[in-house]
């Protein structure tokens, strides 16, 4: 069989993900493997359409394609994302149509499901037959049972291709709206001293998005700072080199605008609004570039409780995966104001919604509202905690210092563990267990009743 591996790592052949692909190649010598180092070659694909066409023909010739990538900020690398955009922009979908495919990623399992959801959606949009998806931990190749799993993943794709099984679509096209929003400009209705920044990638062609930004600006009696990512001088994408691990200092630190502009936003914003237009099943690759490069702060929270919201032009309500990514991003250490999209297709309603969104952002900020995290934030922090307390903390020393200082390496306390151990011991006693069963609900509310009693609210 002819396999085409679309490598999504900026490290090319030296990537952790590629070692798994090399393993497959070496254990299946009867098959032929070709590698396209998409991220490394992105500039060529951007500049030369014939190279893209040639790649399309390669894909067409292959019996199966594997999208193999390391996780970058809950998705694929920004350059991989750009490559996907190029496929659609250049109408190369026919080359992918009907092709059997698999998705393979390596990560620490931090929001790997959102990356896989995204890729599944893209495969469906391209008309590919997604046979299987496998998300490995970075070290899984070193474990025999995980290699067996990788073998099975490979065989599943082989089987799908040779038996012509096909696959059912899970993600249907998001569709595109032609509705044009023209904001009604008003006298400012919101007075505040809070500093507001709108971070956007809007181009002059993003009519609705620009109008949404204008309406928000017009609602507030205060200068709203617009930070446009397209105006930032950028040396490049995140290289995945991890040189930032030791002092949270990227190799591009003072070589382009990124760090200085990001730090200025962090310093001068109480309210931060992300305004972007949806491109395929995410925002633009430019926005992805912004998120990827924020890894200069590695796994350290940077927003310090800012109010954060999202103004999205596009079918956000039909893309739960993107909503989840954005919400999870805020839950790391910000407070979510909410989402607003241009889907309502009603001028008056849109005006009202945007002003209400602006009012809410200011009100939350002035009330110092900090909503507790749900699973998206709590689960995320636990994964980081375990990683930073473990082997990751050995390299990401700045993370370790920060987590330690802010008590983020807190596992269940000894008191809790002893208490749980004792309870397990007692629960082994039949009459104790029976009594607990009988009074379970009462025990559950006992501390709450005590609190109410203390507050004089019994």
């Amino acid at each position, binding site marked *: 069989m002819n396999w085409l591996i679309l490598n999504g790592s900026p490290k090319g052949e030296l990537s952790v993900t590629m070692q798994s692909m090399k393993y497959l190649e070496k254990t299946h010598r009867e098959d032929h493997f070709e590698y396209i180092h998409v991220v490394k070659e992105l500039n060529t694909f951007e500049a030369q359409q014939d190279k893209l066409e040639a790649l399309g023909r390669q894909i067409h010739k292959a019996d199966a394609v594997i999208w193999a990538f390391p996780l970058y900020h809950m998705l694929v690398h920004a350059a991989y994302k750009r490559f996907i955009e190029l496929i659609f922009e250049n109408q190369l979908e026919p080359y992918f149509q009907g092709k059997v495919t698999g998705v393979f990623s390596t990560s620490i399992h931090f929001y790997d499901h959102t990356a896989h959801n995204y890729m599944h959606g893209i495969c469906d949009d391209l008309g590919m037959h997604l046979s299987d998806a496998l998300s490995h931990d970075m070290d899984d190749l070193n474990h025999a049972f995980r290699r067996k799993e990788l073998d099975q993943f490979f065989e599943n794709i082989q089987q799908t291709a040779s038996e012509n099984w096909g696959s059912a679509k899970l993600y249907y096209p998001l569709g595109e709206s032609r509705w044009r929003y023209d904001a009604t400009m008003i006298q400012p209705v919101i007075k505040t001293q809070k500093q507001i920044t709108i971070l956007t990638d809007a181009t002059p062609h993003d009519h609705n998005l620009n109008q949404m930004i204008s309406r928000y600006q017009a609602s507030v009696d205060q200068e709203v700072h617009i930070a446009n990512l397209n105006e930032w001088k950028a040396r490049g994408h995140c290289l995945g080199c991890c040189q930032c691990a030791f002092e949270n200092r990227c190799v591009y630190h003072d070589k382009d605008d990124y760090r200085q502009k990001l730090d200025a936003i962090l310093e001068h914003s109480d309210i931060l609004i992300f305004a972007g237009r949806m491109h395929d099943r995410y925002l633009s690759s430019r926005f992805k570039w912004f998120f990827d490069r924020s890894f200069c702060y590695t796994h350290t929270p940077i927003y310090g409780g800012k109010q954060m919201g999202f103004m999205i032009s596009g079918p956000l309500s039909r893309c739960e995966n993107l909503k989840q990514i954005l919400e999870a991003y805020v839950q790391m250490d910000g407070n979510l104001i909410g989402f607003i999209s241009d889907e309502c297709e009603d001028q008056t309603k849109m005006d009202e919604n945007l002003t209400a969104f602006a009012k809410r952002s200011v009100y939350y900020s002035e009330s110092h509202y900090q909503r507790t995290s749900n699973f998206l934030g709590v689960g995320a922090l636990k994964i980081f905690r375990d990683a930073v307390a473990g082997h990751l903390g050995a390299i990401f020393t700045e993370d370790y210092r920060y987590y330690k200082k802010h008590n983020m390496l807190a596992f269940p306390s000894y008191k809790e563990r002893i208490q749980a151990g004792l309870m397990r011991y007692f629960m082994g006693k039949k009459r104790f267990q029976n009594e607990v069963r009988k009074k379970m609900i009462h*025990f559950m509310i006992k501390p709450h009743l005590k609190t109410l009693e203390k507050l004089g609210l019994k």
Partner: protein
Amino acid sequence: MMSKGLRIALNVTVGFVPLILYWSLAGEWSLYAGAIAAVLLTLRMIYRQARSISTIYLVGYMLVMNTLYLLTHWTWILSMRHVISYLALALLAFGSIYFDKPYTLYEARKAYTKSFETSPLFLEVNILVTQIWGVVYGMAALLRMMSHHHAVIMGIHVLIAGAVFASIKIPDLMPEA
């Protein structure tokens, strides 16, 4: 506010005054003082109408020791008083557990509400606490038999301090009714 575990521990300590006197005073006066204290505690128990197995057991123990000493003048009753007492306490602990009436239960009751006294949770917690004390008493008797070196005595004190700590903490960790 004093924790329930601490209140129980204090109740138990008061119950041990006869033994404390028996161990700390010199000569035969230790026996008499222990017996008097045990009788006083029994009277207190009757007055309060709060049954305590350990008080009944200790008054019996002190009376037996006094009677034996007065009748026989065996010197080991004084020289081996620690070992004998620890063995007697270990017997009290394991014996009371055997009959499903751990002796600490009676002291602990004073710190809890009536409804909780009859709870199986309360009983199981006290079985564990009494087991801990039984083991500590047994070890203390063994150590005392083996040596009178001050390091050994210090070791016994550490064991007892550990048991006191466990007696205070374990009930506090439990969900109470």
